């Protein structure tokens, strides 16, 4: 009884009837004593299949034929090889062309190298050692062949490092290292795909000499080369997103590839990353707004220090980014698209028609808000954008809204409160100015230390955030009233604390305490804590259930293009003559 064959030689053929008999003869001679089977995968339209059947009649178990009918030949040559590998039943598969340019005499060397080196793939290389590519007639063809190999090695430097001839059509592969359904043959040599996609740990090469064509016509052409370029690019981009090698995987995630993939490719799309992307794109689209915000963060020049609405918006986002359980799970991408188109167009129009004077900042802010809203609608869906609407709009609270009366009221309230509390240790210079004495020095509270505009702004933000969390209910009124009281108390106590610091610790501490913005930050933190608690109490994120996140591939692309169109021209101007520059230089 003959032992089980260990090797299957897969030979793709196409109109090569004349080569069949010599091929089998030479294989038999070369592999004498080693049990093997031959699998012809035949895409011919002539009598090649009949020839193969006739040749195999003597040993039907050993010589198999897989004839692919016209119209059922996916993947061309590569597809034929994959079909052969899929049908092979032996532990090792040798792939070689049917035109005798691959000498069958090299096959034993391949098998030997495979078993000796414990490799998964053995490549018969034209370029290694004594191997020569004599048969590759024509300078151009040699050039194309060599160039495509070099290109492939450039594209996959790690995977193909031990391989000099990744374009070889002559190789041996361990059957279980290949999952045929993973391969996407595109007519070209399949070795590259197997090396890149397969479970390959070790590759060795064996030299051989490429031989002149025995009979039949060659199928390689420049067009094949062009197709190869496309194939290579596709393979590279796909493997970039699904790296097989561990270092590449680590590098990939470090480079943020996994974040991108997470967002746009498969189901694990993170809401937070998407919202962050929307913010980043907005900043990119409106570079002029960034310095405006940066300055507004600390100065009270317009009205409310921006740090307060931004803190409230951030606190709101924490609790409301994920959909609450009660939210209806009905979505519509067309509505998203229409709303986003409208909002983005609004952003563009506002940018274009903005006048060149002081009021242009209002236009820019509105355009920014419109863009951010449009991006949120596109990347997170209409429902999520509606849920976040107050958080998106809150920064506009800082828009130039002249509120002298309110400002005055806030000013009087804080100053009066502080005067009342600090009466034992502080004095009044006149109706408004407070001072303390320390070691004979008189420390007068400067105007800028009183968060007169911050307080009304803070209350407004609280009201908006409360409206967002509770709707127009009685609960809203109660909570906003309590929170406003606490925030006012913090402001008054803060001011009194400043005075006390001056009284007890001296002018140094006093100077630190009256830096504009310190009290604003304290207020912002206080409000943010309130809003964060409200937002969490009302909308606890669902524990496990995965909620809807729209597909964002094209949306992200559109937003990037739009951001580039809007922000690109403005970028150099904004950063050279920007207020950020002046801010940095002034400090």
């Amino acid at each position, binding site marked *: 009884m003959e032992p089980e064959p260990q090797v299957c030689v897969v030979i793709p053929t196409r109109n090569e009837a004349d080569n069949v008999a010599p091929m089998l003869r030479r294989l038999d001679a070369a592999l004498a004593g080693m049990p093997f089977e031959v699998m012809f995968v035949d895409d011919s339209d002539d009598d090649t299949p009949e020839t193969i059947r006739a040749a195999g009649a003597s040993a039907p178990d050993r010589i198999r034929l897989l004839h692919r009918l016209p119209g059922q030949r996916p993947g061309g040559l590569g597809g034929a090889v994959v079909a052969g590998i899929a049908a092979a039943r032996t532990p090792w598969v040798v792939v070689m062309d049917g035109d005798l340019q691959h000498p069958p005499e090299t096959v034993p060397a391949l098998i030997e190298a495979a078993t000796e080196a414990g490799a998964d793939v053995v490549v018969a290389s034209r370029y290694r050692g004594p191997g020569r590519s004599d048969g590759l007639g024509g300078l151009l063809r040699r050039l194309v062949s060599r160039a495509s190999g070099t290109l492939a090695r450039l594209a996959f430097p790690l995977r193909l490092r031990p391989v000099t001839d990744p374009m070889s059509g002559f190789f041996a592969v361990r059957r279980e290292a290949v999952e045929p359904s993973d391969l996407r043959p595109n007519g070209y040599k399949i070795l590259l795909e197997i090396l890149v996609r397969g479970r390959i740990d070790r590759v060795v090469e064996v030299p051989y000499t490429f031989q002149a064509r025995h009979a039949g016509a060659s199928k390689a052409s420049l067009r094949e080369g062009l197709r190869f370029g496309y194939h290579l690019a596709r393979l590279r981009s796909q493997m970039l997103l699904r790296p097989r090698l561990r270092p590449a995987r680590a590098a990939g995630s470090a480079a943020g590839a996994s974040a991108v993939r997470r967002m746009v490719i498969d189901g694990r799309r993170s809401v937070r990353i998407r919202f962050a992307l929307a913010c980043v794109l907005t900043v990119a689209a409106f570079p002029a707004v960034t310095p405006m915000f940066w300055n507004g963060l600390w100065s009270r020049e317009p009205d409310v220090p921006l740090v307060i609405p931004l803190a409230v918006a951030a606190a709101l986002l924490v609790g409301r980014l994920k959909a609450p359980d009660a939210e209806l799970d009905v979505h*519509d991408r067309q509505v998203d698209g229409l709303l986003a188109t409208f909002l983005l167009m609004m952003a563009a129009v506002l940018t274009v028609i903005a006048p060149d004077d002081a009021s242009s900042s209002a236009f820019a802010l509105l355009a920014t808000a419109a863009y951010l809203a449009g991006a949120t609608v596109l990347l997170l869906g209409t429902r999520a954008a509606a849920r976040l609407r107050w958080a998106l709009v809150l920064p506009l609270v800082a828009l130039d809204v002249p509120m002298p009366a309110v400002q005055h009221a806030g000013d009087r309230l804080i100053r009066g409160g502080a005067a009342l509390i600090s009466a034992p240790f502080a004095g009044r210079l006149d109706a408004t100015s407070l001072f303390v004495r320390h070691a004979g020095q008189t420390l007068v509270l400067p105007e800028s230390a009183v968060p007169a505009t911050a307080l009304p702004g803070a209350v407004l933000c609280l009201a908006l955030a409360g409206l967002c969390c509770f709707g127009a209910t009685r609960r809203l009124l109660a909570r906003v009233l309590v929170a406003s009281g606490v925030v006012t108390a913090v402001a008054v106590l803060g001011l009194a604390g400043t005075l006390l610091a001056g009284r007890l610790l001296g002018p140094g501490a006093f100077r630190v305490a009256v830096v504009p913005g310190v009290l604003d930050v304290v207020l912002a933190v206080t409000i943010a804590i309130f809003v964060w608690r409200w937002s969490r109490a009302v909308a606890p994120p669902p524990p496990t259930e995965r909620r809807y996140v729209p597909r964002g591939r094209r949306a992200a692309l559109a937003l990037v293009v739009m951001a580039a169109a809007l922000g690109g021209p403005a970028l150099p101007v904004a950063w050279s003559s920007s207020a950020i520059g002046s801010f940095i230089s002034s400090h």
Partner: protein
Amino acid sequence: MIKKPSAHLDHHLDSDLAKSINGLRTRWPDYSAHVVLTRLQRAALLGSALLLVPPLVWWTIGTLRVLIAAITVLYAGAIIFRIALVWAASRDEHRTRVSDEDARAVPDHELPVYTVLVPAYREPQVIGPLMDHIAALEYPVQKLDVKLLLEADDHETIAAALAVLPSPHVEIVAVPVAHPRTKPKACNYGLQSARGELVTIYDAEDRPEPLQLRRAAVAFSRLDPAYVCLQAELGYFNSDQNRITRWFTLDYATWFRSLLPGLVALGMPIPLGGTSNHFRMRTLRSLGAWDPFNVTEDADLGIRLARLGGRVGVLDSVTLEEANSDFINWIKQRSRWYKGYLQTWLVHSRSPWATARQLNWRGLLCLNLFVGGTPITALLNAVFWAMTVLWFLATPPVIEALFIAPFYYVGLVCLVFGNATVIYLNVLTVRQIERPDLLATALLSPLYWVMMSIAGAKAALQLIFNPSYWEKTTHGLHLPRVHNSLSTAHVD
């Protein structure tokens, strides 16, 4: 009493199914929306588009001026038409009224057999209430032929229906699975085995007024045989759920109290509403019943009925429905309606001369200004509002250049007077339905128009890219929400 496709019934069922899908299409291909645009229409559209290109390129502003002038005139026409409808409706009572006494006076044995078609899909939870509402109908059980039309693969609903099936007058009809999976196809299928002399449709969650069938039967016996259909008024039982349902309530009230009676008064065809339309069975069958390829088969049937010489009355009896309470859901539903209106408009513009002859100028006016005009004005509203806002923001000279002086004033009148009038009509409706609490809603209706514009844009997009897609509307949103909302979804 479930009628399931079984072996010996196969060829019979096949012919029923084929008839319900292809009946109209094979009989009058020109009346079916199976093809959105006929070859001639395609050629005409392409031709006019090509004709527009050279002037748009070489004479951009001038062409736009002419276009805008034409649109302004049409716009003004639509507004005047609307006012005329309300005025006509207010002059007289144009709804068909049957008093309670008259309705109850007819002895049971003189009443005709009444078929009630109830199509439902994937809504097992409404079957129970549905049975209650059917039981509440004051109509002799032996004269009722209720057909519950369920899709054969919708095992949940079929199981729920089998579990509560009360009496032999309710029959479950399993509609074989076949495309298009639309309500009109199910209705056509149910119609094949219906045995009534009169027939009506209710949605599964509808709550018809108990006397409605008797009123309709009496009205049909009184009216001229030319009246083949009576449309009952639709209202909402959850109108106070949120702002959207309030707007919707107002919208429907205007539609059924003012606009439809106005159309009746002016002798114009009526685009029927989705449910509670009552037909004479024989005429309905002879008209080819519903077009399964039109996504508003009801509006289409109204126009087809008028073209073939039938008349429609408005019955003074209310069926309560569930108003859509969710923004996205509402847009989906409304965009389907608009798309269906556009489909209907295109179907009936295929042979303009025949249509003109059949409908006369009144019908033609209705078809163009009401059926075609409603979605188109909804869409154009957005464009003109955007232009107005832009003009106030930046006063770009382009916009001024776009208007020719006389038409500019027409447009201005439309903007100021037209909008004010439409809001005023809504306020009138508030008075008419005696719901003073809806006054604020009426005054806020411009926001509702924004929603309409979005729906209009969506409808236009879909008509181009996906004409026979049936937008699903999720129902049961007024119910306390269970964990997974999708289990309560169905196609209406």
